[in-house]
């Protein structure tokens, strides 16, 4: 029936035509299928939606219009359900249209039975579901988002405790590290202060002993006592030197040397120290490893480390001394010098306190407890760092990281020949020290050599003398003095007034904020306390003999070398 005819029939009140119109033009698709799922009848709404004509649809199976997923669902769910319960409603399918498009639909199906209960036909109502499907997708997306959010919240809650615990632990570790650093700093201040005062005492003791011995009648008993006193004072000075090293206030004279040469130079001493208790081995690279440190202190540090390694290896084993240019992630990371033993190792409790001065695990009298303290202070003062890895029964590795000189080394210099002390040629000296006993020793020593001496007990007093036109050839001054001017500042002022003035600076420890560069900058040479009268005499003499331009004479060259071996 065509459109025209159906309209006419309707106007005529034709009941059959009315139903026909209802069927063909309902706002949903109608399909009749045989029990096997083949289409037998289809309304106009369905054909207009899908673009398939009625003729092509009749005889085809409904599932032929479905995608693969739809076909599987139809056979495994739709058809069985329809057969079992007689209907199946609101099933979402995608229908393939004639032009290749796909329309989302909802399908309601009902079985019509014959008299025997067998399926006679299947009626399907097809509803267009584009809007609904879109809405469903949005709902699904919203549900997924909600599930995701709730899952994330659950995870956050689950991990909250662990993360708080971790943060607290991290904080505790940081606080512990800070506490440890503060403790070391405080001990350093304390030992530094004590050692400074002690140095002045030792200087007086040593100087007095020296002068005493010269004036003493030649009595072997008196000489033995005097020698013992001097020996004890020297050992006291050594202990003091280590305390100063720990407090990082010792005057360091950093030079550029090949670390291999330092290690090799001291290897004989180290061998004797180990004395067959353990096997000492060295591992050094082919190339030079230029390092910028105080050579004497490095030797002392190595000796201390090897002594400790030996004492930790009563059952023997290997002690390895290793040096190399360190690399971290392909970048140079300083010079590494390690001492590795296979000995008893340390407990965490010992490890925590191992750098503290006077902390020792050795038997009473067997160690001072200053060895590792000295190493620690020296390395830190040199701008380096120290790592220690140890566990009970697993040996100990201590690695020093020291500044890479970053240069190619010139060939080793010849050792300078010994200089003999000679009497004064009449050059005069101004001695400045706030400690009158120390000053007296210096004055006495220099007077014996025939130098005319002037004295001052403070930087200001000395400067006033110079400003007043006092003629002297050399200024010998302590660094740390009360008052407005310390020794370095005095040296600087004096140089300004008298550019040709020779300057010798002495100190047991450098005041905070000062290093030897300040001494060089002030044009001075340095003599460390406690000094032996002979050392004072030699320093004065060498200055007066013209080796005064100290920045070039005593400070090492940092310029790029042109040494042999450089291509």
């Amino acid at each position, binding site marked *: 029936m065509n459109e025209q005819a159906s309209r006419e029939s309707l106007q005529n009140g034709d009941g059959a035509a009315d139903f026909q119109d209802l069927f063909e033009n309902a706002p949903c698709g109608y399909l009749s299928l045989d*029990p*096997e*799922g083949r289409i037998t009848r289809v309304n106009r709404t369905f054909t207009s939606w899908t673009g398939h004509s009625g003729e092509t649809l009749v005889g085809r*199976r409904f*599932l032929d219009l479905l*995608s*693969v*997923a739809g*076909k*599987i*669902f139809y*056979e*495994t*769910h739709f*058809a*069985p*359900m329809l*057969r*079992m*319960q007689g209907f*199946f*409603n*609101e*099933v*979402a*399918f995608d229908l393939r249209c004639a032009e290749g498009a796909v329309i989302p639909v*909802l399908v309601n199906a009902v079985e019509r039975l014959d008299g025997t209960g067998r*399926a006679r036909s299947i009626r399907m109502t097809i509803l267009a579901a584009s809007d609904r*499907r879109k809405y*469903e*997708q949005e*709902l*699904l997306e919203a*549900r997924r988002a909600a599930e995701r959010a709730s899952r994330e919240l659950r995870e956050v809650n689950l991990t909250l405790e662990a993360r708080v615990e971790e943060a607290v632990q991290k904080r505790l570790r940081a606080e512990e590290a800070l506490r440890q650093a503060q403790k070391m700093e405080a001990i350093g201040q304390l030992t530094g202060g004590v050692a400074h005062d002690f140095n002045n005492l030792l200087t007086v003791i040593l100087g007095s002993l020296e002068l005493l011995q010269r004036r003493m009648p030649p009595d072997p008993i008196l000489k033995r006592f005097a020698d013992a006193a001097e020996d004890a004072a020297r050992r006291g000075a050594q202990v003091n030197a280590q305390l100063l090293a720990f407090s990082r206030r010792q005057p360091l004279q950093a030079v550029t040397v090949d670390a291999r040469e330092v290690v090799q130079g001291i290897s004989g001493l180290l061998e004797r120290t180990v004395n067959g208790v353990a096997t000492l081995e060295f591992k050094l690279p082919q190339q030079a490893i230029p390092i910028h440190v105080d050579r004497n202190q490095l030797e002392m540090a190595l000796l201390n480390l090897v002594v400790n390694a030996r004492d930790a290896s009563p059952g023997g084993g290997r002690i390895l001394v290793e040096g190399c240019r360190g690399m971290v992630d392909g970048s140079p990371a300083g010079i590494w010098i390690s001492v590795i033993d296979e000995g008893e190792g340390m407990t965490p409790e010992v490890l925590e306190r191992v750098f503290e001065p006077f902390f020792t695990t050795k038997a009473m009298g067997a160690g001072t407890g200053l060895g590792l303290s000295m190493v620690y202070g020296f390395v830190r003062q040199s701008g380096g760092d120290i790592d220690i890895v140890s566990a009970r029964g697993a040996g100990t590795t201590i690695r020093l990281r020291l500044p890479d000189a970053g240069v190619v080394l010139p060939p080793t210099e010849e050792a300078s020949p010994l200089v003999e002390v000679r009497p004064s040629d009449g050059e005069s000296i101004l001695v400045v020290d706030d400690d009158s006993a120390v000053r007296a020793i210096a004055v006495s020593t220099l007077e014996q050599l025939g130098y005319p001496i002037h004295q001052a007990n403070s930087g200001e007093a000395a400067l006033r003398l110079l400003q007043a036109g006092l003629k002297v050839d050399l200024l010998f001054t302590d660094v740390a003095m009360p008052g407005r001017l310390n020794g370095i500042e005095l040296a600087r002022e004096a140089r300004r007034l008298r550019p040709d003035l020779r300057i010798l600076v002495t100190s047991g420890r450098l005041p905070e904020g000062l290093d030897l560069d300040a001494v060089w900058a002030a044009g001075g040479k340095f003599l460390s306390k406690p000094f032996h009268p002979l050392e004072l005499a030699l320093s004065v003499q060498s200055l007066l003999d013209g080796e005064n331009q100290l920045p070039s004479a005593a400070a090492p060259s940092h310029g790029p070398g042109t040494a042999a071996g450089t291509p």
Partner: protein
Amino acid sequence: MSVLRRLNAHVSGSGSRAMVFAHGYGCDQNMWRFVVPAFRDEYRIVTFDLMGAGGSDLSAYQPEKYASLNGFSDDLIALCQELDVEGGVLVGHSVSAMIGVLAANREPDLFDDLILVGPSPRYINDQSYLGGFAETEIAELLEFLDSNHMGWAGSMAPLIMGNTDRPELAGELTNSFCRTDPAILKHFARTTFLSDNRADLRKVQARCLVLQCSEDVIAPLAVGQYVHDAIPGSKLVILRATGHCPNLSAPDETIAAMKAFLPELAS
């Protein structure tokens, strides 16, 4: 919980020889409702729901166990052993045809006869083997189940979204058979359609009937032929019925083919 309760097993019938019915993907033991009555007088009938389907104990569904058909055949063996099945008949539809084959190969004493309805040892084509689906088509199915599931899941699940506080409403809207959890439905589809049990066919020792429908998109004719060729001494019957579920769409023809195959029972 006993395996009978877990798998919602029902035993009926007045015979002594056991006939165990195993349903396929997408449904539950209700799908045997038109076939079972024809055998009730002569056999001891066992019907049950595969784990995850129908009235099985969904809380016992373990994704790792049921990631392969062996998990389901373990259940079938446990069920039959619990019921002292020996020398029985296994009627397996669709994926349960292969579950039955796996169980029979593992425990040859359980079944003397296997009736495989619409079996497929592998759904995805593989070189010269025609399983009926390209790999991309199965991927599309699984993807579809993953992404757009509301219509299908809603039609199968006991609860739909938004009505969790009024389950009685959900009951009115949805269907009374073959309910399952959408997540389990997805997982079971993956296990089923990615399975490959072709090598197991050659090991079958029991008598075997392959019931093949015409025009079955799930298990096409070529697959039924393959199964028949692979199982030694098997019998192939091609039904006039179309579709994948002749037990529902053509129960009379199905029953007749089964009876023709099964040996006379010495009563």
